[in-house]
């Protein structure tokens, strides 16, 4: 009961935050009713997906301060579990998605146990390596389609198929991911006020002090890593049904891992709104820059340069990202 109450309780935010959030919720709900391009729709769906990735990353990376650069492997686990089950055995999304989460969480425990013996940069590097190794394994594993990947053929289904999550129009995907997005926000809102959330913030502050307060630091990190993983895996499963054509190279690449972490850091790691703000800036920028500039020869990759520059600017000004700047200004005003 208290859990549920905490999830829906946003009262510790200033009214202005809630007003802005309310306006956005309203806009998100009615967006598909307005005339829009297919491109804008796709960008919105990407935005929600990456917000969710970022929210997941934020639990361990933001609140816990453990910079994880290997989240793409869990996108892959979720996506391939759903795709394989759908293609081979026609298993519905709502069954394969939780199974994918189970696989991903089991894998996260197996990795997390040794990896959390490492600290700081060493941990970050190890997560990159682990993710790349899993990608390489998937690329030679015939059962999951190897490097060619898998293609979900919509022909067999009768869209809109809510059970298998196969739709012709993007608007269905939009509302499905929007629901996940709201659930994600409610979960993180609960998480940040939960015992684990507090313990993690204490760990980020000082591990020895955290231990002296009865916190099993290693276990708390592993648990939270599993939570972050579950978020990512759910969206990975959605990704499989939405994109319908998945390859290890796309779903599990280092780019995805880094983008997930960058978004949360740009928006503000360790805050509820941070990953959403980060995704809201980076995803449209990524899509549109690719669209405008990508086609011109010689400008390929300029989008990477631009967000590299933004990240450098933000971290030089305020390492806690855009939300960090907002909070700094507020604290100064309050005095």
């Amino acid at each position: 009961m208290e859990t549920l109450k905490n999830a829906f309780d946003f009262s510790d935010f200033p009214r202005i935050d809630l007003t802005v959030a309310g306006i956005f919720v309203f806009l998100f709900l009615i967006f598909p009713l307005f005339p829009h391009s297919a491109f804008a729709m796709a960008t919105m769906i990407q935005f929600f997906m990456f917000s969710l990735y970022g929210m997941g990353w934020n639990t361990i990376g933001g609140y816990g301060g453990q910079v994880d650069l290997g989240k793409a492997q869990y996108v892959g686990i979720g996506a391939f579990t759903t795709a394989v089950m759908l293609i081979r055995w026609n298993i519905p999304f709502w069954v394969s998605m939780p199974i994918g989460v189970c696989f991903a969480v089991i894998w996260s425990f197996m990795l997390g146990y040794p990896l959390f013996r490492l600290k700081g940069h060493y941990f970050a590097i190890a997560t990159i390596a682990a993710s790349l190794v899993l990608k390489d394994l998937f690329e030679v594993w015939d059962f999951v389609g190897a490097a060619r990947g898998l293609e979900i053929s919509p022909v067999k289904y009768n869209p809109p198929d809510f059970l298998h999550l196969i739709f012709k129009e993007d608007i269905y995907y939009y509302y499905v991911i929007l629901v996940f997005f709201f659930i994600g926000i409610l979960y993180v809102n609960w998480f940040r006020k939960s015992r684990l959330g507090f313990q993690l913030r204490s760990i980020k502050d000082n591990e020895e002090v955290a231990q002296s307060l009865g916190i099993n630091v290693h276990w708390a990190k592993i648990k939270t890593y599993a939570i972050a993983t579950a978020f990512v895996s759910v969206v990975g499963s959605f990704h499989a049904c939405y994109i319908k054509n998945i390859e290890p190279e796309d779903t599990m690449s280092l780019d995805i891992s880094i983008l997930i972490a960058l978004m949360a850091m740009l928006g503000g790691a360790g805050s509820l709104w941070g990953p959403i703000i980060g995704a809201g800036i980076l995803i449209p920028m990524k899509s549109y820059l690719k669209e405008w500039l990508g086609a011109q020869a010689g400008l390929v990759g300029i989008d990477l340069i631009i967000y590299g520059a933004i990240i450098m600017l933000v971290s030089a000004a305020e390492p806690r990202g855009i939300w960090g700047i907002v909070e700094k200004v507020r604290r100064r005003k309050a005095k």
Partner: protein
Amino acid sequence: MALLEVHNLTKNFGGLTANDNISFQVEKGDLIGIIGPNGAGKTTLFNCVAGLHPISSGQIIFDGKDITELKSHEVARLGMARTFQVYAASGDLSVLENVMVGCFMRTSSTLAAKVKAKEILKEFKLENLSDYLLREIPVAAQKRVTMATAVGTQPKILLLDEVAAGLNSSEIEEIMGTIRSIHNKLAITVMLIEHVMELVMNVSDRVIVIDSGKKIAEGNPEDISNNPDVIKAYLGERYVQEHSAELR
């Protein structure tokens, strides 16, 4: 039965013996001061007792249980809380949230933790600082917040590591009051490491003196301040010889 028994505790860091065969007992309700010159091994002793460092040899019994092999967080859960000497307050937890983290050891309910934390902050007269970040408040208040956080775990014994270091005399007065109220009102057994003699000699029932990793004396504050071994440790052999007449 003593609350805490330390038997022949030895801690080596490579070739350096930081604690050499130290034994002592703490009874329930004691308020014990540990003094000694810089580098004597006082903080190491705390770290060993609280499970932060594995010890090289010896045995530690707390509340009837052998905690020699236990980790820091397990020892904490059995009821041993501590503060740290150097605590760079860098985090984004507010004063209230810091104390809540301590309270979360005994409850998983956010509401219960908050209520308890507010109660403790009131007891420590820190409630008007609740919403500040730790780094925004004066050092003396920071020290009291770390004490409040430790008290939040509802310990049987509290180890305080130099809570008065770097404070002025009115702040020391305030800290002394806090220590006394932890000891008397909350009935928590206290062990404290301190360099500020005024504080140790004032509040402790018993003082243990450590020098170069060895326990050199133990007794009530008055005897300790006249003990030639202790004076030698602090002021050197020559001082003791030159002033032997006065010391008698």
